[in-house]
């Protein structure tokens, strides 16, 4: 390499040594917090201690939601098979109609299990009334709903 090229080379490398790690660190710091679906800590071992409060549905008779102890967790049991794609459980403050779809005020709880059980942490919303909605995201269809009657 000739001298001007070596000098240009050194200049480029010095700039890269500052810019590239700085950009990489920014990128890592900007990583979004992603909620990760986890089993409710109490659920697996304690759901026999369920408080007794239970919510059932009129169409999907195999599905029930019970409260985990006296915590803000819920335990969902589905003894049947799902016949719709992407079936999700929502909580929503309003009374849903047949044409209901997720709104900005509704809260996605998580997947509805297929012949299985799942638990979710709900927070204070658990006892604030509203309605549980079972919704097929694949068919954009409300499958069932039931009032939230959990109380303190």
């Amino acid at each position, binding site marked *: *390499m*000739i*001298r001007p*090229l*070596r*000098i*240009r*080379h*050194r200049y*480029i*490398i010095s700039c*890269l*040594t500052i*810019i*590239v*790690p700085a*950009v*990489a660190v920014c*990128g*890592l710091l*900007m*990583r*979004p917090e*992603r909620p990760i679906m986890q089993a409710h800590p109490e659920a697996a071992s304690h759901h026999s201690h369920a408080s007794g409060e239970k919510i059932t549905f009129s169409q999907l008779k195999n599905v029930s939601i019970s409260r985990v102890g006296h915590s803000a967790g819920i335990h969902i049991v589905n003894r049947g098979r799902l016949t719709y794609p992407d079936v999700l459980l929502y909580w929503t403050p309003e009374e849903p109609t047949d044409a209901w779809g997720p709104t900005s005020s509704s809260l996605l709880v998580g997947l509805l299990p297929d012949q299985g059980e799942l638990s979710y942490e709900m927070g204070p919303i658990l006892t604030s009334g509203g309605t549980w909605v079972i919704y097929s995201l694949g068919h954009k269809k409300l499958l069932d709903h039931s009032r939230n009657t959990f109380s303190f």
Partner: protein
Amino acid sequence: MSVTYHAVGWSTFKKRYDLILWLGIVLFLVVFCGVSLFLFPKVTLEILLIRAFGSAAFLLLHIILCIGPLARLHRHFLPLLYNRRHMGVSLFILALLHGFLSWITYHAGGDLNPFVSLIVSDAGPGISRFPFQIFGVMALVILFLMAATSHDFWLVNLTAPFWKAMHMLVYAAYAFLVVHVVFGALQAETHGFLTGLVGGGMVVVLGLHLVSGWREHKPDNQPLDSRLDQGFIEACRVADIPENRARIVSIAGERVAIFKYDGKVCAVSNVCQHQNGPLGEGKIVHGCITCPWHGYQYLPETGASPPPFVEKIPIFKVKIQNGIVHISALPEIARDLC
């Protein structure tokens, strides 16, 4: 130019290097796919291939970037330098496969025009909130320009300074790809393995460049020696020059290669006319100074390439006193042989 040098050098050596290169690439792809299928058995074929080709291309870029400084630090790495162009073209092929597969997988199936989708899809509240794919496209364009002009035909027609400047864009491509990976794949990574690999790669690439750059910085900044005597400067001891090889000295920042051969000593510019390769790291072959990079040859007495070639390098007058080589501080223009 050398008599034996061909612009496309499919010599046995090059064929062997290419074979090793592609065996290495295939081995990497097979191991990558095998480990991915073991860890993520549900991965789809297209995602597997996108990741395998992207990772292979990114790794190869790291290797290519390390060869330059490694060859400066130790001559054992010089042979890799000769095969760097073929590595560059292989890198482009892998990157193209990755880019094309990503494009048809993520952008060709929707309502939007696939080109528009490539540009606008990262702007929304999706997985990546940063247009990381545009950086991949920009890097791919640079890699394409470099691969397409890698042939000597372009070096001659675009002129060496323009060609060199264009090929320095590889550093921009590297920076774009770090952005592409950090703001893309690493955004969803939770365990830190890939982050560690990208960080480690950055330390190696930048570290090697800094170390070799620092080594070269010192001689570059030496002022014209104060011991300048009647236009001559003391360079080195004859005994320190290996037979048929050279010692490189620096005069006011420019390098001079002092060769010893057949009981004679000559001094020429260290810079090869082809791609500025370091002549002083080459040797005398068949009576000619032979560039270690691609084999261009120059006659030591005149600095001119043997006929029919027309390249010339500057030469320096040499005086030997008490076993010490003195060279003229200013070069002479190479003289024609005939």
